[in-house]
């Protein structure tokens, strides 16, 4: 297997983690978080600062990153979760944009637009290039496993059913004595924690992070993974991410037939395709490739219409 495929799988694994975390927030709980890249970025930079500035080992960086993600998630939810869906979307989008501006401006902390160099790796040094790439892939896949098992477990237990109930209509679980706000907050914080963890792995994989790594296209890819795969279904999210990454990375192999386009046009075209597929999916197959499994006799309401939308 060539190095390119290893690289794609590593990146795909990181996207799977982001998408699974978003699926907990949006797919299960109906929280519209457009700040995915914000939490991803917080994790990446927190981990980078912890390992490079404060010389912690990789694991320390990962823990710091997840902690920072959870704190950021808690702050954002306290600020906005009492408001309805659209406002949460706006506030999270704003958070991501503000965070990106901080990365860009605070050179002393983040290296500014030139980026932050990261020497610490998730695996031992001196392994040689190919082996290192494989080892990092193994670490990322282990991370995916952990994220999948934890989130899948959450989604199939009574806890997950409560989240779904809140998504459909928060009045009913509230009447049953569930603290709706607390459940929303937890789902948001857990999601943010995993997003930040993915950010940490990403930072130590690519070794140079710049604010440009944390812009809207990443968020769109993650959203598309959840929607195309099937919101509310963790396996669907996994499949959705693989479809999206294949679509996105696979288009590189078409460059042979599209040589009349310059690289900027090619990149624009890929994003046009991705945005359009997202719109078409929402329009024609809102439940995604693998719809959410419902144990209720009645057909489930479309997961794309959270009652608080």
């Amino acid at each position, binding site marked *: 297997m060539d190095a390119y495929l290893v690289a794609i799988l590593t990146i795909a694994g990181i996207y799977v983690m982001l998408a699974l975390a978003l699926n907990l927030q949006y797919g299960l709980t109906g929280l519209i978080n457009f700040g995915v890249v914000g939490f991803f970025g917080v994790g990446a930079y927190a981990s980078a600062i912890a390992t490079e500035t404060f010389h912690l080992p990789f694991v320390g960086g990962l823990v710091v990153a997840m902690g920072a993600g959870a704190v950021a998630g808690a702050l954002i939810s306290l600020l906005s979760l009492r*408001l*309805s869906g*659209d406002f949460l979307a*706006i506030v999270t989008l704003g958070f991501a944009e503000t965070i990106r501006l901080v990365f860009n*401006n605070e050179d002393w902390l983040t290296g500014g637009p030139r980026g932050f160099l990261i020497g610490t790796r998730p695996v031992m040094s001196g392994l040689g290039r190919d082996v290192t790439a494989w080892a990092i892939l193994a670490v990322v896949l282990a991370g995916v496993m952990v994220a999948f098992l934890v989130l899948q477990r959450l989604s199939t237990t009574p806890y997950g059913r409560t989240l779904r109930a809140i998504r459909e209509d928060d009045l009913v679980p509230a009447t049953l004595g569930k603290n709706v706000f607390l459940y929303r907050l937890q789902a948001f914080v857990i999601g943010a924690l995993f997003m930040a963890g993915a950010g940490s792995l990403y930072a130590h994989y690519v070794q140079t992070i710049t604010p440009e790594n944390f812009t809207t296209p990443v968020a769109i890819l993650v959203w598309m993974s959840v929607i195309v795969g099937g919101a509310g279904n963790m396996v669907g999210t996994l499949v959705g991410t693989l479809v999206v990454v294949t679509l996105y990375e696979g288009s590189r192999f078409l460059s042979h037939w599209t040589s009349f386009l310059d690289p900027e046009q090619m990149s624009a075209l890929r*994003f046009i395709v991705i945005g359009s597929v*997202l*719109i078409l999916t*929402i329009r024609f197959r809102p439940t995604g490739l693998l719809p959410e499994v419902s144990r209720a006799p009645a057909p489930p309401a479309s997961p*794309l219409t959270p009652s608080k939308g």
Partner: protein
Amino acid sequence: MQLLINTLASAAVIAPAAIAFTLVFTLFRYANFAAGGFVTIGAFAAWTLNAALGLPLWVAGLGAMAVSALGFAAADAVVFRPLRGRGGGTLLLVSIALSFVIENIIRFFYGGQIRGFDLPLTGPILIAGMRLTRETVAVLSISLAATLLVGALLTLTPIGRALRAVADNASLANVRGIPVPAVEAFGVAVAGALFGLSGVLVGLDLTIDPNLNWAVAIPVIAAAIVGGLGSPLGAAIGAIGIGLAEELTGVFLNPTYKGAVGFVVIALVLLVRPQGLLGDKVDRK
């Protein structure tokens, strides 16, 4: 005083789009995040007509408004209308995806570089110690005229009354014999033209850049929320508020943080007064 001029100029640029955003919100109950995309369409259409085809700027400006009105009408017919009734969250997500598509279509055809209108260079005029460029004067007067015109349209004309009736309660308006689809189509066209106008004003005040999308969408949405969603007058006032907040931050903080100001203001307003300055009846369920 210079601060005042800058504030008013920033406000004037975003006011038409903020009014359009609030118009779309009252008519169809969704936050149209593609606002920035249509502003970018307006800016590039005006640039094409003016700099590439050599038309005078006012003709290009009107043309740009027509182009973005058509663009928004097409988007409404193809993307938004079929999804009506699927909840604000779905429409919001779709509008983000759409703005992303628009941004990249523009990048595909125009590339990434920054452009400006074909205007003669003129020095600033000094009035009472304030530096005013001809462009600033134009931006201010065009935006004020457009705001007043839309305000008059909504409050004084029969079609404006019909628009407000449909926004209030479409089925009731229908029963009363108002042709709802026609009125909605008119609202969409007006909103599209206003997005386009903001694009032209951006081009006059600053530069034209495919990255305009978010840079414009954020203050526009902020202005609409600050003013109170659903109130066109509120949107205009909200625009001034955002302009002021942006200019004031520039005094105390690194001006590159300007882009974050809109969000901080949104967060504060949502915490303190979720209905905005002039919004009263907010049904957010």
